[in-house]
């Protein structure tokens, strides 16, 4: 070291002397072993100086480089610790000067590591498999999170795009909606310079019939403002870059174009929309990625919507009809907070003459940035309170758990095994191996295992990704081309390897060789205590996951089994059309005549949803504030309750037998309660300048979007001209497929422009659980894998412990211990650890799941039996895992195990 310092000093004082090429010198410094570096460099330097005198600088430099090249020989950089240096000379060879990162050393480590792996195949397999599964799960979750987080980022204007939302207070509750009055868009565009682009869009269901010749398709698309093409940087593959010049145009995605026109060029082709208008295909755009918020199969220009529908024309100047969505793009550099402040009162100002709206409803516009569309879509009391992000976080934690469990396994097994290698450590130390070398050895061994696990994990991830995609309904892939991704994976692997290797590396290498070799090791409690703690931690995670999974499952079942108040089986709904409505009576007659349909009605929403809500109802005893109470509104025709299979609480269904039913209304129990009506039937209530007579009361039927929410007050009004769906109750005596076959020709007859498109209410209802199902499935998967990995570790540990105590067991057996008692002896330790884990896990799991359940109104309460079941399960699994090894050890003939002594 001293010498090195002096080199620098001397170099400074000799600036004037010609120096040999620096790079060659550096290279030499790098490749030569420290103990010969000085002489080599010194010799070369000396030669160089002599040659400068003799042949001139250039030749000397050339010769220097040549000499350097001749130096590139293994003998000059190889630090052979064992083979060539025989132990008796070892005092002359100071190993501590050899860098443990030297290639030769690392090669040696790896060789030893491989030999060790091959020697203990069982341990190695358990170790690698456990870690690989853990890493694979963590990677899958990582990919999933990446997919969620990167949603919408493909839009070029990601930073400046916003959706305009509206906060309003009804009945004391501040709610947030994306439905706005039609004129908002134009107002923002014309009066505020902040906006670069504004696009109103249609929020309701976009399933429409598209006809080409006699081919009929039902496809989902949206009417959207012309600015949207640029705002969302839609990738126009073919056709007009400005496709919405004419209102009678349609933009297809490549997928839709393929489905309708096959391989023909779709540009310029004519598509008939809803049998009302002929549209020209003006452009084909790339389909949006699956994680994008804006999804469509085709786009229609906003002006077409105004042309086609009378109600839209009316809405154009109506500030009270909240029915339209609005996307905006801010100009670069505009602060959204300032824009928020400016546009806040736009809606209010246009209704300021209404005292109720001014004082109670208080509509307030604000911007919801695109970066929050997917993961932060929930609002409570007008404030953004997150949303799907909670699941992303939850699974991030799950992934971390799994990884920690896998790492713990890895550490436990490595340390357990490395104790067996204490003798090896002792011998190596005795022959002069330094501590650094041992640390290097253990670390490179664990890193090698981690590396092998990484390879296996990648294989697992690739193999399971299609299944995982199906499970999560995504189209994720591993971005092999992304260096960041690789960087993270490699860093993570190195981290795992180093973490797992750290204990044996630093602990075992600290042993005194004399002690090890003299009396073996007495690692004792010091070493097993951390291992026990780790096992407890591991099982705590597993138990928490198990409890969590069961509670999630119970909650989903709870929702599925919730009494709906109507019969979803055998109920189908059909999107109605003008043709169907015009011939409704004839259609109804023919359908009933087939015997396949028991009852039929018209509604304004599919039977498992509500699409409309209204305020402004007045009833006896209602104050002015009550006008802001929102009632869910179902518009329907005769036989609503009969078709839905609702058992009325009071009164009756709408019926032709009562002429007055054309102004009839049916309330649900929540509405009756809210209105405070003692005897609701016969009561007259007012809405939209009309008197409505309450004819019946139905229970709180669950039509909410989330089946876990409370049912809102509802009015079912008789309004035959305000319907888009036809609901049918099929004859339960016939199988659904037979019934459908019977009614299909009748629909085809009366509805020539549309394919017969029907939906079963029970399947539609089941779709409401997709989020929870996803979470349930994912957590079940994670949970099973966590248990699997933990058990793998336990299995390895048990076999290690059984092996360690082989002699003790032999002696016990010779002295008359039974197989059962030996089995108990070995299992006891693990059982007690798992029991401790259960006790630690319970409050943790209870707290976490209580938090999770908080977001549901209709929820289960956590039952004690869940914990009991999980404890029993955990113990059973533990016993099963450990028993194999314990019994194996107990059944060994003591003659065998004791013979060697």
């Amino acid at each position, binding site marked *: 070291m001293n010498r090195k310092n002096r*080199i620098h000093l001397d170099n400074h004082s000799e600036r004037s002397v010609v120096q040999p090429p620096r790079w060659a010198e550096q290279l030499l410094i790098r490749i030569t072993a420290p103990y010969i570096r000085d*002489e080599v460099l*010194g*010799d070369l*330097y000396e*030669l160089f*100086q002599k040659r400068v005198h003799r042949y001139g600088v250039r030749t000397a430099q050339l010769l220097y480089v040549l*000499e350097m090249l001749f130096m590139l020989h293994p003998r*000059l950089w190889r630090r052979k610790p064992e083979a060539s240096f025989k132990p008796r000379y070892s005092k002359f060879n100071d190993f501590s000067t050899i860098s443990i990162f030297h290639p030769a050393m690392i090669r040696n480590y790896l060789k030893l590591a491989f030999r060790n792996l091959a020697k203990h195949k069982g341990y190695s397999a358990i170790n690698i498999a456990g870690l690989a599964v853990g890493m694979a799960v963590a990677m899958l979750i990582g990919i999933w999170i990446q997919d969620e987080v990167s949603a919408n980022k493909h839009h070029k204007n990601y930073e400046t795009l916003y959706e305009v939302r509206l906060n309003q207070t009804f009945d004391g509750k501040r709610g947030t909606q994306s439905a706005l009055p039609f004129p908002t868009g134009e107002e923002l565009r014309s009066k505020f310079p902040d906006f670069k682009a504004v696009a109103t869009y249609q929020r309701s269901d976009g399933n429409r019939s598209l006809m080409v010749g006699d081919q009929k398709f039902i496809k989902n698309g949206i009417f959207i403002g012309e600015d949207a093409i640029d705002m969302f940087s839609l990738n126009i593959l073919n056709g007009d870059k400005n496709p919405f010049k004419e209102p009678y145009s349609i933009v297809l995605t490549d997928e839709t174009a393929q489905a309708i026109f096959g391989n023909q060029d779709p540009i310029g082709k004519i598509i008939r929309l809803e049998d009302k208008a002929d549209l020209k295909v003006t452009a084909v755009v790339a389909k949006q990625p699956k994680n994008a918020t804006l999804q469509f199969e085709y786009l229609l220009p906003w002006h077409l919507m105004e042309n086609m529908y009378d109600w839209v024309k009316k809405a154009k100047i109506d500030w009270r009809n909240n029915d339209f969505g609005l996307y905006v793009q801010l100009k670069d550099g505009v602060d959204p907070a300032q824009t928020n402040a400016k546009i806040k009162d736009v809606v209010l100002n246009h209704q300021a003459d209404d005292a109720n709206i001014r004082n109670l409803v208080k509509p307030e516009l604000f911007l919801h940035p695109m970066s929050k569309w997917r993961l932060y879509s929930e609002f409570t009391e007008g404030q953004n309170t997150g949303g799907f992000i909670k699941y992303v976080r939850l699974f991030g934690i799950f992934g971390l758990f799994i990884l920690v469990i896998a790492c713990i396994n890895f550490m436990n097994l490595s340390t357990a095994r490395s104790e067996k290698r204490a003798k090896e450590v002792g011998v190596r130390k005795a022959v002069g191996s330094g501590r650094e070398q041992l640390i290097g050895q253990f670390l490179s061994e664990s890193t090698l295992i981690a590396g092998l696990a990484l390879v296996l994990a990648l294989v697992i991830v690739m193999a399971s990704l299609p299944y995982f995609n199906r499970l999560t309904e995504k189209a994720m892939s591993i971005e092999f081309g992304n260096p960041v991704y690789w960087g993270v994976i490699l860093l993570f692997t190195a981290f795992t390897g180093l973490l797992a290797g750290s204990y044996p590396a630093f602990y075992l290498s600290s042993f005194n060789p004399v002690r090890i070799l003299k009396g073996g090791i007495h690692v004792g409690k010091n070493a097993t205590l951390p291992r026990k703690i780790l096992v407890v931690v591991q099982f705590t995670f597993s138990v928490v996951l198990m409890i969590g999974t069961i509670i999630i499952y119970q909650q989903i079942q709870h929702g599925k089994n919730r009494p709906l108040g109507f019969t979803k089986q055998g109920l189908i709904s059909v999107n109605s059309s003008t043709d169907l409505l015009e011939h409704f009576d004839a259609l109804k007659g023919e359908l009933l005549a087939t015997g396949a349909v028991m009852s039929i009605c018209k509604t304004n929403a599919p039977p498992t949803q509500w699409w409309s809500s209204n305020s402004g109802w007045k009833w006896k005893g209602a104050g002015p504030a009550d006008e802001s109470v929102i009632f869910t509104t179902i518009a329907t025709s005769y036989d609503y309750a009969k078709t839905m299979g609702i058992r009325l609480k009071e009164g009756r269904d709408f019926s032709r037998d009562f002429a007055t039913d054309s102004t009839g209304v049916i309330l649900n129990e929540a509405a009756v309660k809210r209105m405070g009506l003692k005897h609701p039937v016969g009561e007259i209530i007012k809405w939209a300048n009309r008197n409505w007579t309450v004819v019946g009361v139905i229970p709180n039927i669950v039509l909410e979007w989330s089946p876990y929410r409370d049912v809102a007050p509802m009015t079912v009004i008789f309004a035959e001209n305000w319907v888009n769906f036809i609901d049918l109750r099929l004859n339960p005596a016939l199988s659904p497929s037979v019934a459908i076959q019977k009614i299909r020709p009748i629909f085809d007859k009366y509805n020539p422009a549309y394919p017969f498109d029907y939906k079963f209410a029970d399947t539609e209802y089941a779709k409401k659980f997709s989020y929870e199902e996803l979470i349930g499935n994912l957590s079940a998967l994670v949970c099973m894998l966590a248990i699997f990995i933990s058990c793998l570790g336990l299995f390895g540990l048990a076999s290690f412990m059984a092996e360690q105590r082989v002699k003790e067991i032999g002696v016990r057996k010779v002295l008359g211990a039974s197989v059962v008692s030996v089995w108990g002896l070995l299992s006891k330790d693990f059982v007690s650890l798992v029991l401790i884990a259960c006790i630690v896990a319970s409050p943790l799991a209870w707290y976490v799941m209580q938090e999770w359940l908080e977001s549901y109104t209709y929820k289960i309460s956590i039952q004690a039996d869940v914990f009991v079941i999980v404890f029993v399960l955990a113990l059973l699994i533990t016993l099963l895992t450990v028993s194999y090894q314990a019994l194996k050890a107990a059944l060994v003939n003591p003659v065998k195990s004791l013979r060697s002594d």
Partner: protein
Amino acid sequence: MKGTQLGEFEEIILLTVALLYDDAYGVAVLEELSSRLERPISLGMVHRTLQRLEEKKLLHSRFSEPIAERGGRSKRLFTITLAGDHALQQARRIRNELWDGIPKTAFDHLT
């Protein structure tokens, strides 16, 4: 044992070290050899051989003080060990015996 055999180049190097006595180090050996042999020799070759000889315990080395002319680096000065001396003596003996054993007429037949 393989270690006791002396290669030709090893022998020459060993002899050179002995010749240079107290100033035998890489460059000195190289220059001495270059002036006597008629083949190009690289410093690397010299170093490798010196090192090998030391591993065989035929040479012993020590470091000199750092020297300015060498860019502040020290020389590794080699001296021959007892074993080295033995090996040289043995090589010489074998050669001498061989020389002595050659019948005089053996060279006469050459043309």
